[in-house]
């Protein structure tokens, strides 16, 4: 019918799948739905709609071929309404339909380009307008559907030799599941059309399902890396942390590759035999090879839009010049279009030096690599045997890519450079671990993993479909079952912790504090990450109102209203006449009483737990049960205090109660609290009482105009000295109060980076202050069993009890209790708790 390729075979009739094959595929889709709902690794609305899609798949599979595209198109339109709601869905459909109509106006191609351009500019102005009432979800959906598909469609129309069927256009622009994924593979229109030519339904279904499962594995790996292994660049404290950050920053891209696999896999089930979106991109042997393997659809889009047209224009100057110029143009366009994409999704242009630097350096590397490949001076790598050259090429390429990527995803170039300065902290053991890791990875990279070219479409027998289907069903159901609370109870604690974390998609402290600012993470809205409200080291208005927070004009910065009886987060919240969340105590310590003043932030105050569940209450009860000595534990705390406030509180609040022991509490993200409180003091013109600490703040350059992030980064530069001085000050203050002092280090529920404690621990070690190590107290326990809620990692009542038990054990271990308690604990309880409220 037309000149080669697409147009000649669109009406080919595929071999249909048998009812058994269809049933097996539908079952697998239902299992995918179960797994994604259990682990919440896909947008929740999409996971719910997957069940509808399972039914739709069955209908599609039994429909005659000619009705399939209209059915898919109709389903796509319906999905937009289901996903966005009627009003927003109608807005998206109207705008999309208007653009399609403009593409088909009876005018010259150039006129239509101009009209589409005018429409795009109009939309952009609306996007920028503060008065627009269109919700972000509408912009995300419009962006996914129109940003690049319009370009591909118009390009096709320019050279098309036949008219487009209206269902082809509708199915392409509103393609399921665009409405659920703002980042969607850039599917080329001719490729979309050609993908329907497959001759065998079973083969397409088989390929689609295997890609969907591969995508889910990518997403599970992403969850694991994000929640367990990620180290934010601002938190890297030594060489191992830096390496871990660089590796994990890149591997967060698994979220994109995972989603793309799921999307394209799903499209296969509706008859679109599309090409692979990613191909073993961790095994690239050169920079141009990496470009070819990662986000293949983007590479193809760039080839068609920029590379080939530019090459053909310049090839008269020789192929090397043509390739060089074309590649440079591709990278400039890629940078510009990434900024364009960012604009549609976020409403602002992305203009940062790290972004420019990334694309510029990467572009130069690909040009050099492409020209080198063209010279073909090097022998071709074996596609069947282990090769040392491949091993070195993969390791070298990926090492450079990882470093570049870490620059691209860094908060700023300054932060990135500062992170590198942390590599000076490296032990021989650390270097040894890295060398072993590098050797193992290099050795593995030498094998020709998946390098064999696909020579033909596989013909898939019924037996293969059944066996592969059963295997995938077992895998999907097994993964979903593995994370159920019942099964988690049967397996070892360490493994249960990791698997339990896989289920958790709520906000962890770490999501905010160790936030990755990478391009793709920024583009995936928080709702897609399942995150909720964030807490960045402040108390929040809810606490201030409920607890009656009142400002203080000294370095404590604030206090809780004394003698109050109120409710906070649904729990009784009472304070004594001194403004401590505690029982009433006399200032004069009773004879024979051992007093512990535990000073700390929110988790010490008992954020979200009842009065009789707080750490001090439970610790006092626990120690009193073991001792004939009267023991009192005073709770002197305020949310978001840094340890510097805690030390100041020794003199300002604790000393008059004559404590025998002061416990200072370190927070996993102490630096955030330090920066926030220093900034607050600066803004309120409250002096820092310790001259050495004040000098460090001056040295760091934090002032009242600093932003919280800037303050954090600046305080990072004096972090070691700060913690050491805080500890020294604690020794001096506690000595003046005639008390001993220790530091309580607590790893809160949820994924915590133990490495963030290291500066605090180093400071304690240098000054000889004992550390009560409760860093792993919640390890191996399901988050939900010890945390307040899915989105709040403060310990609940049980968590506080575990913390109290750990603290008691550590106190005994360090010999910090009265003599009679340090030895064999007597039974019985001589403690009078009558003074407790």
């Amino acid at each position, binding site marked *: 019918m037309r*000149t*080669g*390729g*697409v147009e*000649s075979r669109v009406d080919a009739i595929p071999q249909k799948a048998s009812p058994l094959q269809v049933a097996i595929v539908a079952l697998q889709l239902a299992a995918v739905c179960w797994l994604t709902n259990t682990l919440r690794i896909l947008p929740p609305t999409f996971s719910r709609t997957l069940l509808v899609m399972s039914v739709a798949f069955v209908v599609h599979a039994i429909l005659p071929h000619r009705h399939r595209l209209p059915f898919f198109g109709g389903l796509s339109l319906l999905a937009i309404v289901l996903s966005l709601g009627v009003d927003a869905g109608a807005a998206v459909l109207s705008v999309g339909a208007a653009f399609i109509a403009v593409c088909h106006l009876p005018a010259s191609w150039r006129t239509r380009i101009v009209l589409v351009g005018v429409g795009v500019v109009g939309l952009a102005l609306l996007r920028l307008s503060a008065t627009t009432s269109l919700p972000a979800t509408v912009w995300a959906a419009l962006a996914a559907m129109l940003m690049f598909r319009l370009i591909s469609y118009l*390009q096709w129309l*320019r*050279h098309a030799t036949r008219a487009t069927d209206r269902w082809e256009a509708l199915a392409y622009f509103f393609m399921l599941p665009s409405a659920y994924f703002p980042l969607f593979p850039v599917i*080329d229109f*001719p*490729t979309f*059309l*050609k993908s329907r030519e497959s001759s065998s339904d079973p083969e397409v279904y088989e390929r689609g399902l295997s890609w969907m499962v591969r995508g889910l594995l990518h997403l599970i790996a992403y969850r694991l890396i994000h929640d367990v292994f990620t180290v934010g660049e601002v938190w890297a404290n030594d060489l191992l942390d830096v390496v871990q950050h660089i590796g994990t920053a890149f591997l967060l891209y698994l979220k994109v590759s995972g989603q793309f696999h799921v999307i394209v896999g799903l499209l296969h089930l509706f008859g679109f035999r599309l*090409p*692979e979106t990613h*191909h073993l991109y961790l095994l690239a042997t050169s920079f*141009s090879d990496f470009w*070819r393997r990662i986000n293949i659809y983007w*590479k*193809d889009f760039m*080839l*068609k839009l920029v*590379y*080939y*047209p530019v*090459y*053909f*224009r310049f090839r008269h100057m020789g*192929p090397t010049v043509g*390739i060089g110029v074309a590649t440079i143009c591709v990278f400039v366009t890629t940078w510009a279009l990434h900024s364009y994409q960012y604009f549609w999704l976020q409403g602002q242009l992305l203009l940062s030096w790290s972004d420019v630097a990334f694309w510029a350096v990467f572009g130069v590397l690909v040009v050099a690599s*492409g020209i080198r*490949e*063209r010279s073909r001076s090097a022998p*071709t790598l074996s596609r069947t045997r282990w090769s040392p050259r491949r091993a070195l090429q993969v390791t070298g390429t990926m090492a450079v890519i990882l470093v570049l990527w870490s620059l691209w995803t860094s908060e700023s170039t300054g932060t990135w450079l500062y992170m590198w300065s942390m590599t000076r902290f490296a032990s021989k053991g650390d270097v040894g671990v890295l060398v072993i890791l590098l050797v193992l990875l290099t050795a593995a990279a030498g094998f020709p993993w998946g*390098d064999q*070219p*696909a*020579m*033909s*479409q596989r013909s898939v027998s019924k037996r293969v479909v059944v066996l592969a289907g059963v295997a995938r069903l077992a895998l999907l159901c097994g993964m979903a079952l593995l994370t159920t609370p019942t099964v988690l109870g049967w397996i070892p604690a360490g493994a249960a912790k990791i698997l339990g974390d896989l289920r958790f998609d709520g906000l962890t402290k770490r999501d905010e504090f160790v936030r990755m600012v990478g391009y793709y993470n920024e583009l995936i809205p928080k709702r897609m990450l399942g995150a909720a409200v964030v807490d960045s080291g402040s108390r929040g208005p809810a606490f201030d109102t409920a607890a009656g927070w009142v400002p203080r004009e000294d370095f404590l910065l604030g206090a809780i209203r004394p003698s109050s009886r109120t409710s906070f987060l649904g729990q009784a919240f009472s304070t004594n006449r001194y403004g401590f969340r505690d029982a009433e105590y006399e200032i004069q310590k009773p004879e024979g009483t051992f007093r512990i003043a535990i000073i700390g932030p929110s988790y010490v105050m008992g954020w979200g737990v009842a009065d009789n569940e707080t750490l001090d209450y439970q610790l006092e009860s626990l120690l009193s049960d073991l001792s004939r000595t009267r023991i009192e534990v005073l709770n002197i705390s305020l949310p978001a205090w840094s340890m510097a406030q805690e030390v100041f509180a020794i003199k300002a609040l604790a000393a008059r109660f004559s404590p025998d022991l002061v416990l200072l509490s370190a927070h996993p993200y102490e630096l955030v609290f330090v920066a926030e409180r220093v900034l607050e003091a600066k803004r309120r013109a409250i002096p820092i009482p310790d001259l050495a600490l004040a000098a460090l703040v001056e040295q760091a350059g934090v002032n009242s105009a600093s932003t919280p992030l800037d303050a954090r980064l600046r305080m990072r530069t004096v972090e070691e000295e700060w913690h050491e001085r805080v500890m020294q000050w604690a020794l001096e203050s506690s000595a003046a109060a005639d008390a001993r002092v220790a530091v309580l280090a607590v790893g809160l529920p949820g994924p915590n980076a133990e490495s963030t404690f290291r500066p605090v621990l180093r400071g304690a070690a240098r000054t000889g202050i004992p550390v009560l190590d409760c860093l792993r107290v919640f390890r191996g326990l399901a988050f939900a069993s010890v945390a307040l809620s899915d989105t709040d990692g403060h310990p609940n009542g049980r968590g506080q009890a575990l913390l109290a038990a750990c603290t008691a054990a550590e106190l005994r271990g360090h010999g910090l209790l009265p003599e009679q308690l340090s030895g064999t604990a007597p039974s019985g309880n001589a403690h009078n708790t009558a003074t407790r409220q």
Partner: protein
Amino acid sequence: MNSNSGTSPIHDQIMQFITEHFLQGDASATLLPMTPLVSGGILDSLGVLELVAFLESTFGVEFEAHEVSRDRLDTIADIEALVHGKIRQRP
């Protein structure tokens, strides 16, 4: 070379070029008319340009930029149809 019997000279020449240049002359590679060349990983972007240069010089045809794409050059059958079409259009 793995040409099927009854194929055209154009087909055979294309197949021979691809086998020699991109499969290292591996006779065991079963290259069929519908083998996916681009999506199958046999031809990359540079390979496509080499193939285009070969087609232009061997068959005396000229390609335009928009014709150099996966959907037109993904199989030997696609390439053969494209070359045939161009030869037919020659004045």
